[in-house]
């Protein structure tokens, strides 16, 4: 086959060096990934070969049945697969693709587009900290640091920056395993982590669902 052409060595040399990245030093996983030529092409997985747990299969099939076009079930299917496997692992995607009769590539394209899919193994609990404008005006950036520090490195708790979670009225706030809490004050970060580790509902009194509308809490002079 084609050997390395001229210029190849120069490029190889570049590859050895630390090359400057995006200004914040970030890299997107996959950017530098070549294809693994020992793998087969990723076609639609054949149900005769891929095993899918019946419960997962049922859930995905039920989702497919809800829509006029089965592809609409991509998000529910990925969510189910993520729940079953802990994250959107290649195996999870393969299984969802097998049930949906789409390629795993199709689902990967979808999964990587949305923020709520985890494409790396992640902790048991998800803590989303909103650090968008309204929350950060009220101390969200510091809150994120506190929670991240309290959660430590053991990977049990997956602390993530998140864009506006639609709860600026309780800024700074967090979404813990999909339940909203706020506003968090001094000491709440530590307490949140302790509660989670102890298997308790975290910060129960800060739960958003308990709040009345701000309008109803207005001082008397504003009532109609």
């Amino acid at each position, binding site marked *: 086959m084609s050997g390395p052409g001229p210029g190849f060595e120069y490029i190889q040399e570049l590859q050895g060096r630390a090359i400057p990245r995006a*200004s*914040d030093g970030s890299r997107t996983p996959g950017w530098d990934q070549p294809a693994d030529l020992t793998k087969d092409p990723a076609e639609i997985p054949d149900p005769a070969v891929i095993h899918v747990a019946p419960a997962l299969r049922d859930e995905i099939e039920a989702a497919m049945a*809800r*829509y*006029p*076009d*089965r*592809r*609409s*079930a*991509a*998000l*529910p299917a*990925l*969510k189910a697969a993520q729940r079953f496997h802990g994250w959107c692992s290649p195996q999870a995607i393969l299984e969802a693709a097998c049930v949906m009769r789409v390629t795993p590539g199709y689902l990967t*394209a*979808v999964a990587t*587009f*949305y*923020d*709520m*899919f985890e494409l790396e193994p992640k902790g048991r609990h998800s803590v*989303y900290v909103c650090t*968008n*404008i*309204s929350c*950060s*005006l*009220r101390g969200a950036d510091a809150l994120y640091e506190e929670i991240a520090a309290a959660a430590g490195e053991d990977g049990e708790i997956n602390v993530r920056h*998140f*864009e*506006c*979670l*639609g*709860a*600026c*009225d*309780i*800024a700074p706030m967090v*979404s813990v395993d*999909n*339940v*909203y809490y706020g506003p968090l004050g001094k000491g709440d970060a530590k307490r949140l982590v302790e509660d989670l580790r102890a298997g308790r509902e975290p910060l129960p009194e800060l739960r*958003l*669902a308990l709040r*009345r*509308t*701000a*309008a*109803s*809490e*207005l001082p008397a002079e*504003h*009532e*109609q």
Partner: protein
Amino acid sequence: MTQALLFKDIDEPNLADIAVYERRGGYEQLRKVLSMSQDAVLSELDASGLRGRGGAGFPAGRKASFLPKGDMDKYLVCNADESEPGTFKDRELMQKCPHALIEGIVIAARAGGINRAFIYIRGEYEEQAQILDRAIAQAYDAGYLGERILGSDVSVSLVLHRGAGAYICGEETGLLDSLEGKRGNPRLKPPFPAIEGLYGGPTLINNVETLMTMPQILRMGGNKYAELGVSGSSGTKIVSVSGHVQRPGNYEIELGIPSREIIYGLAGGPPPGRSVKLWFPGGSSAPVLTAEDLDVPYDFDSLAKAGSMLGSGAIIVVDDSTPVLDVALKTARFYRHESCGKCTPCREGTNWTVKMLERIEAGEATPMDLDIMASVQEQIIGNCLCVLGDAMAMPIGSMIAKFRGEFEKHMQRAQLTGASA
């Protein structure tokens, strides 16, 4: 100062339960439209002057009338993606009064001759989604949804669809792609969704608040509703006030009241000793206004005249303790993160803008960079596939225009101290 239509019973315990909702007069308007002709429903909506509450402010009745007549699958999609920074009204509405949304959906479906409805709710709103799941099941059981609603010849199915974290899925065509199970990339318009939308069929897309207002319009009558608010901006609006105010939260106001009354009167204004430096009147996509604009009436046309927009009705207040650069960076980073990447000016423009702002922050920029940045915003505006690019370029552009001095001062200071991010 407040005017409660949507919020009238909002804190009623268990309003999310169908029995409580019905006891409060819920679903009466649904019954009413079943016996009205499609045109009659449309004309009530038209008469109300209701403009979309999702951001673009398009007249709701007109939009519903664009759907072609005829015997085909037509779709209604309720936009419950609510991802515009600063906006949290739909969340509160759905959480507390989900049945009003269902009722509104059936009314809108009736107006558009629609038989299949979807609610696209952002994935992060799992609590609200569960409340809706329950409410939808109750509504089906009660015969308010499904085949031949309450024995009439109107049939509407409703499916709740959860997103998975992407702001662009609030843009109506990105939402459609996402609902079809794809990456949420916006589509080229035309064709407009009313002609060719979900699964290629005619599709009406409305915001949660827009739909929830419909039962109120039918209850009051379109003309009566139109008497609320001001000309061009009829009715009430839920505004979400956040940031540097003492009482952040949702307030229902009659459109056209002075903005100051909302920011200071309802939300309590900035903390003591602080003053308003700038504010976004309609979510982070709106060009910023300053303290000088506080007396602008809060309605679609007045805000547009003031150089900004009402958008989603989310007021974010920033007081004088916060550098404008911080706000600009937060804003730009948000749009870079959320740009879908499909079209060039938005994908590259948001990225470039962030990089320039980071350089300003790091003290590595000169005033010429401000000119470049301003020109980049101009290169974005109007040239993108959808308006997400504009949604960054407009506020950033307005910040450069209104706070140029502060940016320059920051540059000088950062250069002198060699400060870095």
